[in-house]
């Protein structure tokens, strides 16, 4: 199964890879060129072409190539997009600049980037960009920018980019083709031709841009149909472009080849002509040189004169003959003969008399006048005679200015040497020939024999009007290459030259037809090549078109098939959804769903598996279709590591659908693969079923078709799985709701039972347990029940109550009451395992179960629970024979009920105990109160008597000592007086002590008032009271504002009096006593303090400070009884406050006391 999306993606990847690879290739080519330039290895920059890639070109390739590469590799963000835009824009701008510079022939050395480059190729400097290259770069820049900037709104830009890339492709193709055929385009012209590497790099860049543009177009998403409609046009256009490219490449190539060939031919012709002219000139010179040997040769003249004078003189004759003969043979003269002035031939070599040609006689008379050597051009002596040339050498008498005595004629037969020489052609050439002509009147006279016309020599003459004929042009003075027609009228090309010092003109000519023969051959080759390429291009485009068509139809077919399939799935979906709405029971729904999937959805197999809550194993709950033993082999458990990675297991673990497109190829399926294949199952998909987020199982579909499940199918099935999940959730919620309702009912029932139990305060435990047991049976819908208490160490169970039904049904006469925990059967398990035990299938074998004795109530189901009090199990309650299975709710109900009952029993016991204790307590309180009262009374009496009876004697001692002192004032010695004083002082001290003890004791007993007190006022009063003690003292008082408080004014005043008095007392040693009274507000308390700078105390003893009779100073230092602070503490404590102190020896002390803010503080 192929999906259009996947295909598109695949193609996208392919195009992506192409674009990246091509872009990189272009960039690398540029890099290689630069490397070549840098290392001086120009081959790397030229790839063997006559021109190397310019540095600027290389840089632009790197820029463009990497731009495409990077852009395609990773589509940019906004910033990168702008960077690419700007970089390529700059590149394009540079390309435009370079194009104009190159076009105008302005070659700036900046293009060499500092590398010294010189030299030319084909007449233009190397190292500069070709205008064509620059132009291509401009195109490339625009293509990239257009494609890059295309948006979904304007896909036209990408299309423009595409066409521009096509254009680059075309150009580069032409360039490359030109190289392929031999000559670079523009080579030898005015412009710099692009290098081979440039052409190749452009092919790469063109492909990259093309791919990029297509990607950009693709990304704007075009439907298949639209693509198809467009595809044919595009393909035709592509073909046309290719064709135009191929043809124009061929044409350009041919054109250039033709030119080249022609030039070559012309060069050959010229060379041949030149050579021949040179040789002709030489030949003539030689001939004239020969003549010069005899001309003005005295020896020869003498011999001729002698011979003429005396023809019989054999010696002269012989000598002369020998001489001439030597010449004749040596230089291959046709005939050398000697005439006398009368025109009579006197000697000839060879010695064969011939009649004298009449024109010779004319020349003779002329030469006799001119006495000059005359070159007699081609002529015939007579019309029937062969053509000869002749050199006429006058034989002069005497050295200078002598008269002509004879004429030596060197007759030359051109056939012998000249004609063959002229006619000789150094190369092969059927029509190539050399001819010499001379002007003869108004004609051009052909002087030698022609290949194509017999007896042309001296016969063929062409009027000078016929200027198209090269010979005529030669005669008219043209030099060089001419084109025209020859004497036959066939077009020729010829090199024409005048032979210097002669009337001759040389024409080296060749039929144009012959010149063009190889060219035509080449043309054919090119045509055939072009034809072949066109065929290839056509075939290629045709193939692509066919492929496109095929794909189009395939996709159409597949779409139709898909729709059919989807329809099927949709029908299935709809049916199952209906089932979901209709069916109220999960099992039925699962079965229906599977059945519909197979019947309507046409799946080969559909099944639903659910996870077992406890074992975490997947259990097949419903299936339809061909399952064979396949489903039995499925063994998936989430508890252990996956056994296989089949879709079912993976879906279960991942919680998302898992597809297996080809079962036969999926190695993960090993365990079930073969069975599935045997069943003809080839692809499958599994969907997890989730209920409130947790995976409960899977629904699985199998088909006999590989690659069956596509995206949409999966989407719909996914929905289906969700619907089933939803239904499951609904069922669960429904069940849960029902269960909750049931439980609520049970709860209510239990509550009522407990309430009832609560009312049974005064009932016996037996009543309570019986009632509870009957309620428990009712709540759990059981038939029987029992209840047993456990002893302290949980070893023995004492059966306490049986339900009525159990009692009625039981046939055991002597029921045991005591059961040791260790040996009891199944129902002891709840104690042993310390948890509720449910046995819904009582008949099933069970290791714990002991068979019950004969006559025992028949048990089908059983459930019992331990009831805990803290850690200890206090009782076991059990129920049995519920018509349906016991569940968690039953366990809960029984547990809660029994726990409630236990609490009530406990409370009842506790209440009884409390009542007992209360009574005891009351009695004890009465006793204690009486004791206390007695003690109080005693104390009162005691203090009263102390007050009365202790003070009296002291007073008496004091009184009488005083009297004694007064009476004996004069008679008593000093020592005795001192003793009396001591007694008096001691008595006084004793009096103080007693007073203080009494006040202290009073403070503990006195009733307290409770009034609002202004502390400021209280302190003032206390100070007033202490006025006597302040007499003459220099005390700096610092009394801060103090709060109003509740308390007993006289007591608190006493506190202040004590404290201030203390402060005064202990600071009296200080010259500048300082006493500070203040107050800190605490959260709950008022904290008062009094600070003095007096004697202070050692913090070591601070804990003793407030104890009665406790003194930290000696009596000599500071008098006192040690009751004051004890009183302070007592009063403050009675007010619910605290006292404490801080101090340091000789640095003063601070005494604090706190009083609670709340009024309730009172004892």
């Amino acid at each position, binding site marked *: 199964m192929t999906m259009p999306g996947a295909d598109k993606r695949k193609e996208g990847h392919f195009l992506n890879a192409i674009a990246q690879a091509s872009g990189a290739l272009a960039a690398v080519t540029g890099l290689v060129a630069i490397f070549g330039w840098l290392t001086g290895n120009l081959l790397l920059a030229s790839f063997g072409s006559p021109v190397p890639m310019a540095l600027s070109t290389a840089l632009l390739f790197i820029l463009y190539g990497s731009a495409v590469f990077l852009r395609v590799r990773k589509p940019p963000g906004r910033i990168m997009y702008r960077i690419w835009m700007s970089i390529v824009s700059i590149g394009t701008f540079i390309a435009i600049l370079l194009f104009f510079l190159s076009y105008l022939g302005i070659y700036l050395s900046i293009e060499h980037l500092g590398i010294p480059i010189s030299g030319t190729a084909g007449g233009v400097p190397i190292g500069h960009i070709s205008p064509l290259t620059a132009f291509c770069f401009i195109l490339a820049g625009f293509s990239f920018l257009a494609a890059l900037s295309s948006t979904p709104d304007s896909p036209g830009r990408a299309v423009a980019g595409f066409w521009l890339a096509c254009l680059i492709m075309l150009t580069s193709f032409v360039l490359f083709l030109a190289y392929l055929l031999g000559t670079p385009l523009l080579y030898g012209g005015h412009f710099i031709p692009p290098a081979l590497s440039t052409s190749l790099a452009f092919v790469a860049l063109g492909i990259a841009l093309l791919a990029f543009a297509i990607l950009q177009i693709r990304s704007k998403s075009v439907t298949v149909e639209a693509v198809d409609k467009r595809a044919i046009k595009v393909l035709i256009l592509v073909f046309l472009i290719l064709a135009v490219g191929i043809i124009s490449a061929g044409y350009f190539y041919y054109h250039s080849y033709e030119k080249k060939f022609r030039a070559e031919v012309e060069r050959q012709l010229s060379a041949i002509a030149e050579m021949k002219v040179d040789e002709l000139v030489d030949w003539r010179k030689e001939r004239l040189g020969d003549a010069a040997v005899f001309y003005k040769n005295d020896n020869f003249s003498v011999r001729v004169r002698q011979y003429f004078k005396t023809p019989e003189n054999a010696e002269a004759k012989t000598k002369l003959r020998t001489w001439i003969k030597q010449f004749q043979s040596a230089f291959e003269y046709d005939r050398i003969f000697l005439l006398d002035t009368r025109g009579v031939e006197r000697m000839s070599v060879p010695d064969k008399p011939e009649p004298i040609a009449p024109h010779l006689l004319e020349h003779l008379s002329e030469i006799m006048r001119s006495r000059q050597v005359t070159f007699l051009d081609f002529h015939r002596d007579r019309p029937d005679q062969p053509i000869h040339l002749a050199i006429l050498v006058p034989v002069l008498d005497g050295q200078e200015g002598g008269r002509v005595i004879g004429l030596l004629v060197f007759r030359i037969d051109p056939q012998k040497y000249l004609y063959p020489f002229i006619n000789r052609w150094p190369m092969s050439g059927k029509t190539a020939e050399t001819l010499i002509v001379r002007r003869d009147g108004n004609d051009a006279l052909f002087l030698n024999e022609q290949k194509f016309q017999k007896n042309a020599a001296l016969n063929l003459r062409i009027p000078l009007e016929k200027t198209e004929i090269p010979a005529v042009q030669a005669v008219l003075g043209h030099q060089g290459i001419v084109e025209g027609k020859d004497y036959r009228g066939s077009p020729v090309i010829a090199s024409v030259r005048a032979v210097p010092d002669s009337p001759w003109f040389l024409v080296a000519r060749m039929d144009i037809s012959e010149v063009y023969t190889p060219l035509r051959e080449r043309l054919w080759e090119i045509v055939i090549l072009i034809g072949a390429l066109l065929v290839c291009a056509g075939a290629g485009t045709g193939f692509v078109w066919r492929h496109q068509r095929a794909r189009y139809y395939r996709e159409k077919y597949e779409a139709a098939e898909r729709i059919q399939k989807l329809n099927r799935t949709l029908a299935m979906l709809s049916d199952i959804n209906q089932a979901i709405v209709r069916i109220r029971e999960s099992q039925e729904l699962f079965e229906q769903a599977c059945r519909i999937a197979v019947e309507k959805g046409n799946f080969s197999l559909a099944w639903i598996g659910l996870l077992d809550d406890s074992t975490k194993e997947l259990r097949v709950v419903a299936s339809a279709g061909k399952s064979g033993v396949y489903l039995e082999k499925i063994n998936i458990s989430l508890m252990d590591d996956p056994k296989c990675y089949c879709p079912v297991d993976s879906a279960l673990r991942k919680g998302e659908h898992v597809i297996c497109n080809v079962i036969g190829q999926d190695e993960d399926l090993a365990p079930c693969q073969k069975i599935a294949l045997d069943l003809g199952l080839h692809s499958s998909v599994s969907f997890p079923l989730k209920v409130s987020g947790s995976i409960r199982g899977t629904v699985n579909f199998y088909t006999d078709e590989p690659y069956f499940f596509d995206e949409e199918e999966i989407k719909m099935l996914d929905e289906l799985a969700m619907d089933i999940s939803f239904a499951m959730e609904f069922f669960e919620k429904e069940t849960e709701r029902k269960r909750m309702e049931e439980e609520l009912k049970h709860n209510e029932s239990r509550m009522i039972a407990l309430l009832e139990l609560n009312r049974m305060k005064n009932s016996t435990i037996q009543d309570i347990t019986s009632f509870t047991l009957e309620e428990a049976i009712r709540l759990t819908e059981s038939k029987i029940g029992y209840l047993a208490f456990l002893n302290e160490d949980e070893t023995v169970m004492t059966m306490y109550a049986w339900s009525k039904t159990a009692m009625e049904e039981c046939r055991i006469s002597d029921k045991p009451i005591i059961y040791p925990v260790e040996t009891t059967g199944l129902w002891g398990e709840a104690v042993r395992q310390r948890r509720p035990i449910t046995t819904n299938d009582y008949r099933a074998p069970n290791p714990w179960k002991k068979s019950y004795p004969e006559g025992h109530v028949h048990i089908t189901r059983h459930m019992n629970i331990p009831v805990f009090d803290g850690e200890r199990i206090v009782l076991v309650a059990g129920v049995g024979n519920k018509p349906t299975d016991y569940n968690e709710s039953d366990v809960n109900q029984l547990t809660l009920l029994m726990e409630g009952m236990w609490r009530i029993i406990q409370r009842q016991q506790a209440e009884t105990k409390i009542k007992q204790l209360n009574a005891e307590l009351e009695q004890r309180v009465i006793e204690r109160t009486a004791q206390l009262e007695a003690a109080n009374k005693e104390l009162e009496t005691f*203090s*009263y008597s102390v*007050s*009365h*009876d202790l*003070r*009296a004697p*002291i*007073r*008496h001692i*004091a*009184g*009488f*000592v*005083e*009297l004694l002192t007064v009476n004996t004032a004069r008679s008593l010695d000093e020592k005795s007086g001192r003793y009396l004083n001591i007694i*008096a002082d001691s*008595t*006084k001290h*004793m*009096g*103080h002590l*007693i*007073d203080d003890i*009494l*006040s202290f004791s*009073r403070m503990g007993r*006195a009733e307290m008032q409770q009034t609002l007190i202004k502390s400021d006022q209280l302190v003032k009063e206390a100070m007033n009271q202490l006025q006597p003690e302040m007499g003459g003292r220099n005390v700096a008082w610092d009394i801060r504002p103090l709060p109003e408080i509740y308390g007993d004014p006289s007591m608190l005043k006493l506190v202040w009096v004590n404290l201030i008095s203390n402060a005064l007392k202990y600071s009296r040693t200080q010259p500048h006593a300082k006493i500070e009274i203040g107050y800190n507000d605490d959260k709950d308390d008022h904290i008062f303090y009094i600070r003095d700078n007096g004697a202070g105390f050692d913090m070591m003893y601070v804990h003793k400070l407030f104890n009665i009779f406790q003194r930290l100073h000696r009596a000599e230092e500071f008098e006192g009884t040690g009751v004051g602070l004890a009183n302070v503490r007592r009063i403050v404590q009675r007010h619910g406050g605290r006292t404490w102190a801080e101090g340091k020896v000789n640095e003063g002390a601070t005494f604090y006391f706190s009083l609670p803010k709340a009024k309730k503080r009172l004892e």
Partner: protein
Amino acid sequence: MLTLKSILLVEDDPKDIELTLGSLEEYNLANEVFVARDGAEALDYLYRRGQFADYPSGNPAVILLDLKLPKIDGFEVLKTIRSDERLKFIPVAILTSSREHNDLIQGYKLGVNAYIVKPVDFHQFTDAIKKLGIFWAVLNEPPPGCVKKTT
């Protein structure tokens, strides 16, 4: 002209009596002091019965009453005085060693005119007695029916 009035001192302790009388003597008050050694005697004296039947009638200007007394204690004496039509106006000053609050309350409840705690200090004691004597025996105008002696 100062009128000395008679003082009834009810005190069981002879040392106290001595000290008290010693103090009163300084102002010549001692002569007019009749000392009763217990509550019964005090009442007998006031009612002129028993051994005191022959005593001239007339109430003392003040009764200095100790609380702790043999036979009939001070409060009972006070109670009897205050409940008797003839005696109830006699100013009674409790002169006691007790500083007990309860005693104080009890005393005032029963209509005592003054409550003096006997200071332990001799000087304070004599001072207090003197002031007491001066106040009650000299300065205070007693209710009618009390014995007066003009000096």
